[in-house]
């Protein structure tokens, strides 16, 4: 299909003798929202890190919008228009909220005044105005997460890769984050690695279940939840 924006074939990653990722074929359509789930060690984070370029796959290929990106360094993949958010909030703690957003804006807007304008836009859109001159290191976890979403959003990505965006969030933060996600999803395809089933249900999407480095099931959220094999490997036999 022509609207496939991300595709992997035979993607594998070995750590010593262990195959953390074993021959994964995967594809994602434009503006699709896909969640990756699986028990610890299932390979979803390894898969995520191979996509972002943080890890080099041992074997297989990755294509983004038809271009092979296997083994590219992170900054080249990001430059394609891919927004990435890692599991631990990764922000510039010693700088202000505004400077953080500006650093993302300036990557995409060479001219200073364009970058400044874009920064103001994003700050207004995320209602970060009151805290825009605060140092990021002094903000609450939820606010820092939000700024990191701002960093991702500033680049107008067509593909967004998120590793556990709901981790450690309060219920109110969660509501705000799902709003941001929906807004991003209007223009971008999205891959979300997530543990929180409630959160996944709230953003209702297709799910890919990883197990022992392979794709176990790929289906809609409700059908995955009622799938007995998934219950066995992921939710545990007693569930």
């Amino acid at each position, binding site marked *: 299909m022509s609207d496939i924006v991300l595709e992997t074939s035979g993607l594998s990653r070995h750590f010593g003798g262990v195959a953390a990722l074993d021959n994964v074929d995967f594809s994602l359509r434009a503006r699709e929202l896909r969640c990756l789930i699986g028990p610890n060690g299932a390979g979803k984070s390894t898969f995520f890190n191979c996509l972002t370029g943080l890890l080099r796959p041992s074997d297989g290929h990755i294509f983004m919008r038809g271009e092979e990106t296997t083994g590219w*360094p992170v*900054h080249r993949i990001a430059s394609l228009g891919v927004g990435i958010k890692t599991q631990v909030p990764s*922000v510039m703690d010693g*700088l*202000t909220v505004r400077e953080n957003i500006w650093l993302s804006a300036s*990557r995409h807007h060479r001219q*200073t005044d364009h970058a400044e304008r874009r920064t103001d836009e994003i700050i207004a859109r995320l209602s970060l105005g009151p805290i825009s001159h605060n140092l990021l290191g002094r903000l609450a976890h939820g606010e820092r997460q939000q700024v990191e979403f701002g960093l991702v959003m500033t680049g107008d990505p067509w593909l967004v890769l998120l590793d556990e965006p709901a981790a450690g969030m309060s219920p109110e933060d969660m509501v705000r984050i799902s709003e941001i996600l929906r807004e991003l999803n209007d223009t971008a395809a999205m891959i979300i690695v997530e543990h929180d089933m409630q959160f996944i249900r709230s953003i209702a999407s297709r799910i890919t279940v990883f197990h022992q480095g392979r794709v176990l099931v790929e289906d809609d959220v409700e059908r995955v939840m009622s799938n007995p094999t998934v219950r066995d490997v992921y939710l545990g036999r007693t569930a």
Partner: protein
Amino acid sequence: MMAAAAVPIALLLPYVIDTYTLTVLAIYAMLALSLGLVWGYGGILCFGQAAFFGLGAYGYAVGAINIGESTIAMVVAVAASAAFAAILGAMMFYGRLGDVYLAIITLVVTLILYRFMSSTAGDAYVIGKARLGGFNGIPGFPTLHVPGDPSAYIWGDALYYLCAAILVLVLILVKLLLSSGFGRIAVGIRENETRMSLLGYDVRARKTLLFTIGAAVAALAGALFANWGEIVTPRLFGLTQSAEIIIWCIVGGFGTRLGPVLGAASMGYLKFLLGQQSLIDNTLVMGLILILVVLFLPRGLVPALAGLWDAAWQRVPARRVQRRRRDLV
């Protein structure tokens, strides 16, 4: 504003301290500023800034002997040292070395240069007409003169004013660099390298460039130092020299432009004063100062003074304080 304040200070200082000492203090300040830029703003802990300082000095001496005049020799000194830094930097940053390894490698490179330069006695070690001279170094090269007029030497008071002017110029250039996109991005990389590459910045290339710029400033200081001392010796690459630059930055406060400058000038002057007596060993005093500063002013003198200033002028609008804080961090 800082540059405007620096000019009258530079003009008044000769009434208090002799210009011969002031010249070397200005040179040390420039050298410290180069590390302050690379370490304080770029987050690159380089233990080998002395290598680029020494190469600048040697580059000038060798260049001046071969060319017979000083203007091109200055350019040669800075260019050679910067080229060396670009190659070394590219190897380290593209090789994805961690901070600790980077510190060790830069230190080792400095010590290798020290050993190498010390062993270059004899006729086998010549570059053009210049004998490297082993442990005794290279004396008797043509010193700075007015460009185009090799008989008009710049020395004594004039050399001081020249060094002070270059220091002010470098301070202004560093300020411009830091407020440019390149500088702001460099600070972003210092804060979070992974995040910056996730945003699409080529961290390796940018670090290599910043490292090279820092080396060029250190080389400029080295070339001026050669003119001040009128001799270059392998001691420029010594462990003492490497350590001192770092101490200047820590005492003055890195992450500021003024910190390394004042740190170097005050520690340099103190060392000069202590050198005139034989009661206390001066490295002991230096070490003590370093320990006291690290314990009681962990961010260094200048940030501590800036904090006092802010506290004394509490009416400063919140926005300005924020802006200043951003400058300092």
